[in-house]
């Protein structure tokens, strides 16, 4: 599983970087002073979470993101709250929040519409409480009503992202994020291993083991606030 994820990351990186191979073979270069001063602030709403809240009756969630540009880099924060109430033969409730922060690297800074393809890295942290209630039929002890809960546990993990921002109208962009979540660590749960982790997703594989890696998609509706003019750098010509 982990090996196939590494292969996927390698393939994504390879496909993304192939167009840039050979770019260093410029004949005439003009040294331009790099502009590290921020010029744009992106504020986004996680549409996939809103859609999930609408479609899935057991889940309500809200998420957003903010990023600020520094040359080709973006300092990014994502956050949200999540509440899950799975009512089956058992009742599982989980509520908490998450925060992710990290850096994105814009691979197409020359795009005249300020569309963006970027690779990113995030450190993510989640804090939540959950509870599991169920009854068990036991041939020796009869029907038992069991209740377990975890209070204020935290989890942290790392994410590798491929992000695409496309202008849809003036300063409005649609952003999609493919994220690979790895290196998850949960602080000692009180009574049981959580089934869900806000911001991470399902903690259990369909089977008997905890997930060590996860993959996710997010879609953002982003508004682009520009607080100073910054020229789009010209593409180097060979």
């Amino acid at each position, binding site marked *: 599983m982990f090996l196939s994820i590494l292969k996927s990351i390698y393939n994504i990186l390879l496909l993304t970087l192939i167009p840039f191979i050979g770019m260093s073979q410029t004949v005439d270069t003009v040294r331009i002073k790099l502009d590290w001063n921020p010029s744009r602030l992106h504020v986004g709403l996680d549409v996939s979470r809103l859609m999930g809240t609408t479609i899935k009756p057991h889940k309500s969630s809200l998420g957003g993101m903010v990023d600020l540009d520094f040359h080709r880099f973006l300092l990014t924060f994502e956050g949200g709250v999540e509440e899950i109430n799975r009512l*089956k033969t*058992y009742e599982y409730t989980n509520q908490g929040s998450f925060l992710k922060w990290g850096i994105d690297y814009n691979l197409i800074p020359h795009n005249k519409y300020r569309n963006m393809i970027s690779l990113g890295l995030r450190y993510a942290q989640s804090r939540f409480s959950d509870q*599991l209630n169920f009854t*068990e039929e036991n041939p*020796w*002890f009869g029907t038992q009503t069991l209740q377990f809960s975890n209070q204020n546990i935290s989890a942290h993990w790392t994410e590798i992202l491929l992000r695409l921002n496309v202008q849809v109208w003036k300063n409005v962009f649609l952003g*999609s994020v493919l994220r690979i979540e790895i290196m998850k660590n949960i602080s000692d749960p009180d009574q049981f291993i959580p089934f869900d982790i806000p911001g991470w997703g399902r903690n259990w594989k*369909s089977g008997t083991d905890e997930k060590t890696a996860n993959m996710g998609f997010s879609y953002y509706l982003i508004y682009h606030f520009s607080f100073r003019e910054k020229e789009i750098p010209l593409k180097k010509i060979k």
Partner: protein
Amino acid sequence: MRFWLFFLSFGFCLFESCNEVEDCTLDPYGNYAVATFDILSGESKIIAFDSIILEGFGRLPGDRDTLIGMLLPLPVEKTEAVFHYYTDSSLYSLAVGYKSQPLIYDLSCEATIRFYDLDTSYQSFDSLVILGSEVHLDYVPINFEIYL
């Protein structure tokens, strides 16, 4: 734009394809450990107990049968189960320590309890071998082998 639509559709398809369907009858967790008995004397290959008592619960059903194996029920709310085996001439005791953890095996299945780190803090049989320290019906069909 076409690429964009493709990418959006791809994401949804990927999400849906990850929703695996689980067969709940394959739940590998039980609420009991399994012990088998082995008679060292070789005169008889089966053993009959007058009664088997689980401390805090009482007499276990089916305890008068001739046994080559026995299910050992493990109470969830405790971390140790003490069994007393009475024959017409002897009393054997077995104290099994364990940890338990509830889990949702799969979204569509019932919640269950996983028992693990099984150990014996006391036993008065001739000898006892721990074959599997977790209750897992697929991987560990027998937890204890008891020699009399």
